[in-house]
């Protein structure tokens, strides 16, 4: 029997905006979203590192001047500090190691809320090997595990080279059922029923609980005229996956071909009970063609996604390159050790007494060594702490003087911080010790930057997609950026008189 006499084709893809959600499209969407999140996170960490430099480098300079008894020229000390901060740039390292170095050097100056960001960074470093593996899985999707070749077979665009690759892969990986299934589908399409049955039986031996293979086996058996066995295979498939329309539909078609109309109607009723719209669609397609035809199943997208994440030399090379790009210095497999070592170093540094490092009072701006913290965790000198704890402000000259100091510091800081926040949203808030607000503004800024740079995405679907969201994404990024600046202007980092 010729295949085209009873094969309608494959199950239709779910579509959104006229675009079928096939594997390359889903991979492109998921991959780009994933890369977007990763890029935004890394950009945030890098900019937080820059914020820390801007905020704490002057305090560090103050401490170094104190330690050296003001004997050394400030220009020389500044030059040395620049050299220390830029030290990783002299080596083959990425932004990750550079930021980690800044966090390490400035660790004892950081507030508790800022330290939490560093802990998040350590967590990212710890899992960075895995993160880059997943990113590489998205990037190398058409090149690994013969997924692209299998997809081509199911989308009627496979070349002889693709088929040769599948055959070669199956010989080298006899425990991999999917390529065998693809070859079987190709055999079915060419009406090579016996070859199809052989390959599908091998698939079932490898994955006996996969109903898709039973369905395909039923189609192949139908090709040889073994309807009873085909019905048995479909029955088994339906038992394995009772919520599938396809198996009942195919069952009804086989019953119909053997003139068993009662069973056929019964099977189609069962299929309609699951998804009547799909059954209607399949029947309409069948009516258009004018023949009774059976349905094959495409490999699920989740199966493709799982396959593309399997370790392979190509994926490993891409993941190593990605990791080396972001961090460098040591191989990817040592990323967990890097994170752990970084954490232990910070832990040891936490044992240095806090009063060895100068701090700037959030209230009056005075630089001090031993003080206290406000309720929100901002540094505060003891004098301001005392003023803060007073139940009511008395009309005493000395208190008025101190309050005047605080007011003038706020007045000076207000414009400076607003300007900083307008230039780089989040910087002003970070300087004003409002880490949470700073982080929100920074994330929005980084998302805008990433959206502008990436546009509609880095990873593309090799299946033509007629929706181009690049312009819309970039326009949205510009609008969000403008809204952010407006928000910064309306809600400055420091409330004047507050």
């Amino acid at each position, binding site marked *: 029997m010729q*295949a*085209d006499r009873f094969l*309608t*084709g*494959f199950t239709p893809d779910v579509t959104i905006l006229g675009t079928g959600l096939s594997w390359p499209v889903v991979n492109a969407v998921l991959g780009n979203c994933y890369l977007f999140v990763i890029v935004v996170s890394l950009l945030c960490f890098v900019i937080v590192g820059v914020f820390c430099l801007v905020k704490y480098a002057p305090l560090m300079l103050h401490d170094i001047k*104190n330690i050296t*008894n*003001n004997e*050394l*020229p400030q220009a*020389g*000390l500044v*030059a*040395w500090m620049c*050299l220390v901060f830029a*030290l990783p*740039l*002299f*080596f*083959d390292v*990425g932004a990750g190691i550079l930021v980690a170095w800044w966090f390490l050097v400035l660790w004892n100056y950081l507030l508790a809320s800022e330290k939490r960001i560093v802990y998040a960074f350590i967590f990212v470093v710890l899992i960075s090997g895995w993160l880059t593996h997943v990113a590489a899985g998205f*990037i190398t999707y*058409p090149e690994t595990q013969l997924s*692209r070749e299998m997809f081509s077979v199911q*989308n*009627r*665009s*496979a*070349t*002889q080279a693709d088929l040769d690759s599948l055959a070669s892969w199956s010989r080298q990986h006899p425990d991999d059922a999917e390529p065998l299934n693809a070859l079987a*589908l190709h055999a079915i*399409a*060419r*009406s090579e029923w016996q070859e199809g049955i052989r390959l599908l039986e091998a698939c079932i031996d490898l994955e006996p609980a996969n109903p898709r293979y039973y369905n395909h086996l039923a189609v192949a058996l139908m090709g040889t005229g073994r309807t009873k066995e085909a019905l048995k295979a479909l029955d088994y498939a339906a038992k394995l996956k009772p919520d599938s329309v396809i198996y009942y539909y195919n069952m009804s078609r086989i019953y119909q071909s053997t003139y068993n109309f009662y069973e056929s109607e019964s099977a189609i009723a069962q299929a309609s009970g699951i998804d009547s719209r799909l059954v209607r669609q399949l029947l309409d397609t069948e009516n258009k063609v004018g023949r009774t035809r059976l349905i*094959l199943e495409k490999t699920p997208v989740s199966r493709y996604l799982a396959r593309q994440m399997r370790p392979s030399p190509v994926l490993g090379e*891409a993941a190593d*390159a*990605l990791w*080396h*790009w972001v961090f*460098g210095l040591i191989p990817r497999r040592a990323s967990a050790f890097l994170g752990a070592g970084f954490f232990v170093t910070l832990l040891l540094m936490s044992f240095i007494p806090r*009063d060895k490092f100068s701090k700037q009072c959030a209230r009056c701006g*005075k630089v*001090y*060594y*031993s003080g206290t913290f406000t309720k929100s965790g901002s540094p505060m000198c*003891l004098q301001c*702490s*005392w003023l803060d*704890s*007073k139940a*009511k402000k*008395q009309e*005493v000259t*000395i*208190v008025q003087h*101190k309050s005047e100091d605080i007011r003038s510091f706020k007045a000076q800081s207000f414009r400076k911080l607003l300007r900083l926040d307008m230039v780089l949203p989040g910087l002003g808030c970070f300087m004003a010790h409002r880490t949470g607000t700073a982080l929100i503004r920074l994330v929005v800024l980084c998302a805008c930057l990433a959206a502008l740079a990436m546009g509609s995405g880095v990873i593309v679907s*090799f*299946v*033509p997609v007629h929706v181009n969201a690049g312009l819309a994404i970039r326009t949205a990024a510009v609008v969000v950026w403008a809204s952010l600046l407006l928000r910064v202007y309306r809600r400055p980092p420091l409330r004047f008189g507050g």
Partner: protein
Amino acid sequence: MALLGTLKGFGVTEIFQLISQQMKTGSLVLTSTKATVTINFENGVIVGLSSNTWERDPMADVLMKAGFLQEKDFKAALESAKKNSQPWYEILVSKGQLKRVFVERASNTVIRQTLLEIFQWPEGGYRFEDWEGEHESMLTCHIPTESAILDTLRIIDEWTIKQKIPPVDYCPVTVIPITEEIVKHHELSEVDLHIYDLIDDKRTVERIVRESLEPPFEALSSLVRLMDLGLVEVFPQGASDVRDSTIARGKTIAGLKKAALYGAFVLCLAALAFSGQSRLLHQDLVPKVIVSHLEYQHKLAATFSAPGPGPSGTDTGSGGR
């Protein structure tokens, strides 16, 4: 008895603040393992202070150490004071043997020093009692409580200058004469100038602090500030004859330090530039491996978007075979 408790639950600052806010009158007795200090308040203002560690009037000790009072004069004044029921220093002031300003400064020094100590007590007890009246050993004063709290907290805040304080037996010497310009430029305070005036080749750090009649922290802070500004340097006692050579050597060392700072910087920079392998100079913006993978996707997309079916004949729906 109006108030009683331990310093662990309620710190000295809070107690002072409470008394000040409510403008209380009475005696605050603070006890620790080291001492028992009684502070008298009148309408929330500190008016007197005494400690059980004082064997005699601590002002006399301060003045004697500073060299403004002789032991025999003090004893004579003390005897006269008993007869005339007058404070001993009033007798000396009336005789012209002591200046009133010295007495006030000595009193201020003792009170500030005592307050600094009690503010740093980690534990102890307190009780606030009704006014008991002044007794003999009570030092009288009139210090607004807020002022006392702020000044003491400032000292604690800035206590790190301790590391820079020179040995007490060293002799500070002036290096540059102070001019009006220097005073304006560095915003030198009256205490700074007072300390500077006391510096000669002979006085030790300890003697300068004592003779200044300033609270030790204030005096030492000024001295450290003058040293930081390069106006004053300290040498071991008796080494004034070698001062010039030491200053010259110091200048040479300072020059060498500067040269070493810049030299080491240039060396490190050169070593890092030569031995390091900066990515900024040697690597592309995006790794070639990643670029090739992304380019492959575009190539594939172009292939798939080309018109016409695939060449394999797997077009199962078209019936083309």
